[in-house]
């Protein structure tokens, strides 16, 4: 009998010690932050409508790309989290979004609306990708970089994802979608490298990374470029 009550006492103590942070740090913030909905802009913001988020559809290419981002483990080397100036130099690196209009800013919870989980990341072997959709607008560049990073950035340590591309023989004219590889990175003559739908989906996902929408009611009037982007 004594054994049993001693066990209950210990178990209660353990439950209370752990239950408090479990409730206050995990469950309550989870419920509260889960309730975030896209906000409407006010007149002072100078933008029409709701905050715009990537046009993600179930089964659409952005959602396929998001799944690939997980499957390939991109998050082990790339973060999607811009720290405020007191916690890092991220914004000075231009990772905070568009510089024009003074809109570069740190990421906030609402920016991840629509993501299946926020890919905040694990390490920064490569640059932050929160706003890569603003920095890299050239589809062909992103595709070539996925296939052969070192053909564009010599010191890069990113793996080349050849599995996302098809190497095939062509007769006469090269396809429009074929990568423009040069020198030692080029395939044998008569062959071309074309992206698979997966590669295109991953690029769609990367191009959708724009986590700097003007904050509704912040009293920080949006620049022209931002206005255009938000009402797209």
């Amino acid at each position: 009998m004594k054994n049993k009550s001693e066990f209950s006492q210990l178990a209660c103590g353990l439950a209370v010690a752990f239950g408090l942070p479990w409730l206050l740090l995990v469950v309550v913030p989870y419920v509260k932050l889960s309730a975030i909905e896209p906000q409407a802009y006010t007149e002072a913001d100078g933008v029409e409508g709701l905050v715009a988020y990537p046009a993600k559809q179930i089964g659409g290419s952005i959602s396929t790309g998001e799944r690939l981002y997980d499957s390939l483990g991109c998050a082990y080397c790339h973060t999607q989290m811009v720290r405020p100036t007191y916690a890092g130099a991220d914004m000075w690196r231009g990772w905070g979004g568009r510089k024009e209009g003074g809109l570069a800013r740190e990421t906030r919870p609402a920016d991840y609306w629509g993501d299946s989980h926020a890919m905040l990341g694990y390490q920064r072997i490569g640059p932050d990708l929160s706003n890569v959709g603003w920095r890299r607008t050239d589809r062909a560049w992103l595709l070539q970089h996925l296939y052969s990073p070192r053909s564009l950035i010599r010191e890069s340590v990113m793996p080349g994802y050849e599995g996302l591309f098809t190497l095939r023989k062509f007769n006469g004219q090269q396809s429009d979608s074929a990568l423009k590889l040069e020198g030692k990175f080029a395939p044998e003559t008569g062959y071309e490298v074309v992206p698979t739908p997966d590669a295109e989906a991953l690029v769609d996902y990367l191009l959708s990374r724009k986590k700097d929408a003007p904050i509704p009611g912040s009293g920080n009037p949006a620049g022209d470029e931002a206005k255009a982007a938000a009402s797209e």
Partner: protein
Amino acid sequence: MSEDTTKASVEDIRLRAAIDRSVRYPVLFFFTSAAAWLFVATVLGVVSGIKLANPDFGPAWTWLTYGRLWPLHTNALIYGWGMQAGFGLMIWLMARLCRTELRNSVTLLVAGHVWNFGLSLGFIGMWMGKGTSLPWLEFPTFVWPLLALTYVVISLSLVQMFRRRRSGSLFISQMYIIGAALWFPWIFITANLLINNEGGSAVMKAGINAWFMSNLVYFWFVPIALAAAYYIVPKIAGRPVHSYPLAKLGFWSLALFAGWTGFSRYNGGPFPAWMTSVSGAATIFILLPALAVWLNLSKTLAGQKKLADHSPALRFTSFGVLMFGLFALLSALVGFYGPGRLLQFSHATVGIDTLGIYGMFSMVAFGAIYFIVPRITASEWPSGKMINFHFWFSSYGILTVIGFMLVGGLAQGGAMDRWNTDFIASVELGNGYVIGRCMAWFLIALANLAFFYQLALMFIGRGRKSEGPTLIHAEGAKSSAEAAGITAEGGAANANA
């Protein structure tokens, strides 16, 4: 060492032998399969490091990229080696401390096989690209209920043993084991349920992931390591724990603070600022239990530190406890914004994770395994030289890994913090240290090959049959009395209470 502390009564010896027989099969199964996973993990540590430093090494197959290999390495290390070694430790320690035989060893054996089956499925799934890419929770979604269920079965049998216990007093090791048994399912199920809930907050899923990582260490790996250390150090020193109130203080302060840690991994992240700050502060408070444990155990061992020259169990355990101190210190440092901004997302934070799992937990687990396996197999380790090799290559290897990752992280993070330096500079500065880390993992892989070899010999009953225990530098042991002290089973009053 006086006669009455080393000599146990005949009944005691019979009871202990009966207990050891009852737990023999599940404990040996967990230890041996853990050691096999550990070898896999260390090899993956080497290969993933090579692929990180030089991605063009070898074929360009997707399943050989760093993004696939790294999570395989950490998962093999955590769920394959760490948790299975922990299960073995928990079962044996609990049976011995409760002075009660294990009644359902078949259930535990089945649980062990199910655990390995689940891990293997998860492993293959991740390798094929079905992983979630949430660190330490990467297994494809269908795996976690299986693991949770298995864990609950193991927990229940531990709780059962505890409630049937014959010895009156409550040992500090028992408190840690009960803690680990109850906390883990809570943490694991919470994290998996909230993360897999489609409608949940995307940001909180990442935060809960970070919270899970630090809670897994503080509420599972630390308690198990400390349970083993609080058992082994007094046993070998042949005297009770220096201060029971201090041990309790260490336990309850860990229990109070550890649940608040984790979010500081994302300092400056998209969370309400109080969350990351509270986590940073809690990580600093973890220094309190670390200090309590270190003080208590070194006082327990006072004047007898030389025993670690000969006793493998004590040597590994002491190293692990020291590494717990270092781990707590470095974690607290990164919890501050200042050093945090330099080291966050750099190799250093990953190095600190590795320090917790390999430097702290694994080293203590090795010590405990060297202590336990001869008792349950009734044979001695084949070679003291090989144990010595295992110790030096492991300890040198892990210190080198940590050193490279801290200095490399500082170089990498420092370059990243200089906003007017090209980003690629941080890659180049960090890369050399990644190569160093690979080489250190190679040493660890060699060490663990020796460990697995010896354990496999014990497993198939090819241990050394001898009166005396296997010691490091056996010829150097001054007297047989000293040697006896190393493995002497003090009476129950003597150990641990």
